[in-house]
């Protein structure tokens, strides 16, 4: 004989303020099989939980209904509570009297109470049909794949490696360091970016638990949380990594000049070169699109680098190499890209050489950059007498990207301070802005510092930027503080073009079936409470690929994501929720509808032999299945169903929703 305990929570006044909780509890007692019914202010509290546990022991209750807030809040709490006194945790049914009754119907307390009673009645009917379920454990690989070698990937890798996990850090460029390696100084401390970054880069290279795979990309992913199989393609450098000593004699000998991507094409490098000034690993790489030998596939051509290389490290016969790895978790740290400011045609970027972007200014200001750290006009190569910054280029703009890029204001502030420090009083510096966002720790003080350095803040954005014959620029801007229309002349204009989703993000979506938010960045599982992970189990997020952010937030998120991975993998196994799809093979016709519908790729078709014939049967990969129910709804034979959501169980609830109708048609008790 089943004995059901019903507990009605007041939830303070959230529920009790609208419905009559005592009435509901009394009503519950009239229902068949209900042995105990109580109401209490906070069921999820310690005394509330103890009340349930005591009743289970005293009355030998074997099914529990808790009428309270959404199961998303405390279902886990109550499952734990009942399992502590020996009752299977999956024999608990949560009835939602808050989000589904008291909150939406707060203006009709009487009708709300009737609805609450109906829901409790439905819950009691269902809980009697629930079967005990066990959580399954599956072992996991204690290895982690980190994709992206910027500061996010670097930080996460170090945290994971220090915790004892084995890390594979994959970076598509020839060196790690990412965007931060391109920066001169960082706000708000004006730390030299390379000085704080390079020690971490070296740590990564030296760490015994980290395998650094640069010039590489992830090409294939199979598997599920705890057990991913990834294929990594190592693109050939055409240089033997074991032999190259980073002396750069090859670069000096190479006759082919190409735009230097690391310097944002402001200078040139050669077809064979070391990627960046502080490259890790410091190994030369040949760009096959430009190298004469590789481009023409002519073995007799050029070869000057081979002649120059004393270490005999150059190898034109290198092929791409595919590596297979097994990892338990993945951190996506693929970063973002810079908005192409030439799309905002009215500002002349791309047409006028003295209109540059924030990142180009950064390379100019960096001592290891194209001008040796001197602030110079790209065209005349003379120091500018006047610099104008224009904010929000391509950001907060319905024509391009609606979101705020988060870093543009701080980057420009930093660059104005650097310009003032390097050029002294001889330069006029203006920032044309809309809102100046200095939100972080030390940021407002940094803004004050800029104002103290006599940097002019113009509250207004220009409509367009025009050029004179000699390449200097001028524009009109209405300054809303003084209400004056000002004509501004600048030798150099710097556009604060923001960050946008990169191609890397599209690739990650394809490989890992992760989702993107409306702005195009990778979607976190919950914007407030779960910002470090995707809704796909085992995939975590760090850095600008989730949303544009600065270095402090990136590092924090990276360490957080690493902690989540450690949490996931440290015990060597993970427990799975049993509320998954299961297939009754006898009913399965092999139609594959479930396989085609599953958004998590959690259904596999397996060949089985029956009576000498080969048949296809669906099989659920339990670790990947999220229990969404799509398959179950679509299955034409009813072969695949979700545990605890069988037709019988659901229809029992439906019958109790309209008992008058049920009586007409015959009850399903």
């Amino acid at each position, binding site marked *: 004989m089943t004995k059901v305990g019903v507990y009605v929570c007041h939830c303070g006044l959230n529920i009790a303020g609208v419905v009559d909780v005592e009435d509901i509890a009394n009503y519950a007692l009239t229902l068949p099989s209900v042995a105990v019914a109580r109401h209490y202010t906070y069921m999820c509290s310690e005394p509330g939980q103890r009340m349930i546990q005591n009743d289970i022991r005293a009355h030998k209750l074997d099914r529990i209904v808790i009428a309270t807030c959404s199961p998303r809040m405390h279902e886990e709490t109550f499952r734990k509570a009942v399992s502590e006194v020996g009752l299977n945790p999956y024999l608990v049914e949560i009835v939602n009297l808050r989000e589904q009754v008291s909150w939406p119907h707060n203006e009709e307390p009487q009708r709300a109470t009737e609805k609450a009673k109906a829901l409790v009645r439905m819950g009691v009917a269902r809980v009697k049909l629930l079967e005990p379920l066990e959580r399954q454990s599956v072992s996991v690989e204690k290895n982690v794949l980190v994709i992206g070698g910027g500061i996010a990937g670097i930080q996460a890798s170090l945290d994971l490696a220090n915790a004892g996990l084995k890390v594979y850090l994959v970076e598509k460029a020839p060196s790690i360091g990412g965007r931060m390696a391109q920066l001169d100084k960082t706000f708000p401390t004006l730390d030299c970016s390379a000085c704080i970054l390079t020690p971490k880069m070296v740590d990564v290279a030296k760490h015994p638990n980290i395998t650094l795979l640069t010039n590489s990309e992830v090409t294939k992913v199979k598997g599920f949380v705890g057990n991913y199989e990834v294929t990594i393609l190592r693109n050939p450098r055409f240089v033997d990594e074991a032999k190259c000593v980073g002396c750069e004699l090859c670069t000096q000998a190479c006759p082919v000049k190409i735009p230097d991507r690391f310097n944002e094409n402001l200078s040139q490098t050669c077809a064979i070169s070391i990627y960046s000034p502080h490259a890790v690993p410091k190994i030369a790489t040949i760009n096959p699109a430009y190298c004469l030998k590789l481009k023409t596939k002519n073995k007799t051509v050029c070869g000057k680098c081979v002649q120059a290389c004393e270490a005999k490290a150059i190898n034109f016969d290198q092929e791409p190499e595919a590596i297979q790895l097994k990892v338990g978790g993945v951190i996506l740290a693929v970063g973002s890209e810079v908005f192409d400011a030439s799309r905002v045609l009215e500002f002349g970027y791309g047409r006028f050489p003295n209109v540059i972007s924030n990142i180009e200014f950064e390379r100019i200001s960096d001592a290891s950059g194209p001008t040796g750290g001197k602030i110079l006009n790209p065209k005349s190569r003379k120091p500018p007498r006047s610099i104008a910054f224009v904010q929000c280029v391509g950001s907060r703009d319905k024509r391009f990207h609606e979101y705020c890029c988060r870093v543009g204001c701080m980057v420009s502030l930093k660059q104005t301070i650097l310009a003032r420090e390097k050029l002294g009083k001889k330069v006029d510096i203006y920032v044309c802005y809309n809102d100046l966002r200095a939100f972080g720790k030390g940021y407002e003080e940094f803004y004050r510092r800029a104002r103290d350095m006599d940097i002019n803040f113009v509250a207004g*954005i*220009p*409509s*367009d930027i025009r050029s004179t014959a000699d390449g200097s620029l001028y524009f009109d801007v*209405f300054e*809303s503080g003084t209400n004056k*229309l000002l004509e501004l002349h600048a030798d150099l204009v710097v556009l604060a073009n923001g960050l946008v989703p990169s191609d890397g993000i599209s690739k990650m979506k394809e490989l890992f079936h992760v989702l993107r938010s409306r702005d195009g960045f990778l979607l976190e599982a919950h914007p407030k409470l779960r910002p470090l992970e995707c809704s796909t189990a085992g995939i975590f997020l760090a850095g600008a690929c989730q949303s544009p952010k600065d270095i402090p937030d990136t590092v924090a998120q990276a360490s957080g994501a690493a902690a989540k991975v450690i949490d996931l993998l440290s015990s060597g196994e993970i427990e799975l929720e049993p509320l998954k799809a299961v297939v009754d093979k006898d009913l399965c016709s092999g139609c594959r509808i479930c396989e085609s519908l599953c958004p998590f790729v959690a259904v596999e078709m397996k060949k089985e032999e029956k009576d000498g014939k080969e048949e296809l049967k669906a099989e659920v990969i339990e670790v990947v299945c999220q229990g969404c129910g799509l398959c179950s709804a679509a299955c034409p034979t009813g072969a695949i169903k979700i545990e605890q959501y069988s037709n019988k169980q659901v229809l029992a609830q439906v019958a109790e929703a309209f008992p008058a109708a049920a009586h007409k048609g015959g009850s399903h008790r």
Partner: protein
Amino acid sequence: MSLTDLMSMAKPNLESREKIFARLCGRNFLNCYLCIKCTSGCTALKLLELKPHEIEKLVNLGFVDELASSDIIWTCATCLKCFQRCPQKASPYHVIIALRNLAVEREAKVPEAYMKAVSQILEGGLAEQPQKVANKKMETCDREGLKLPKIRPPKESFQTVFLKALEEKPS
């Protein structure tokens, strides 16, 4: 709204603002975040002190009545740069046209030339009267002399229907 303009002692008039909204067919002046780009590039700013961002904000807050009876709304050169470059697609141009329509509805001051154009259209279909122009030799020329086709005026029925259209107010 609980605002008072202490310079003029005017209060916002949300009904008037609704009238502007009704005329705008979806373009949303509520989105303006005062980047001032429109005014920075406004063709009529230097000579006539037209500040599109100001008009946008005034209407946003509900200070419509004063604008509808002002001279400033008639200074727009309709170059459309403001709408073209606005990052929030809040078109000052369309707000100004709506204010002009409201001014006419309330019989506020309207530059004579517009009313003259309307009466010309009613009379003969065109907003302008055919002119004689001087050629290089200082001779006067007209359409006939230049062998251009005669102007075909609209049918009589046009006048009545056009008048009906002029009576139409947005719902």
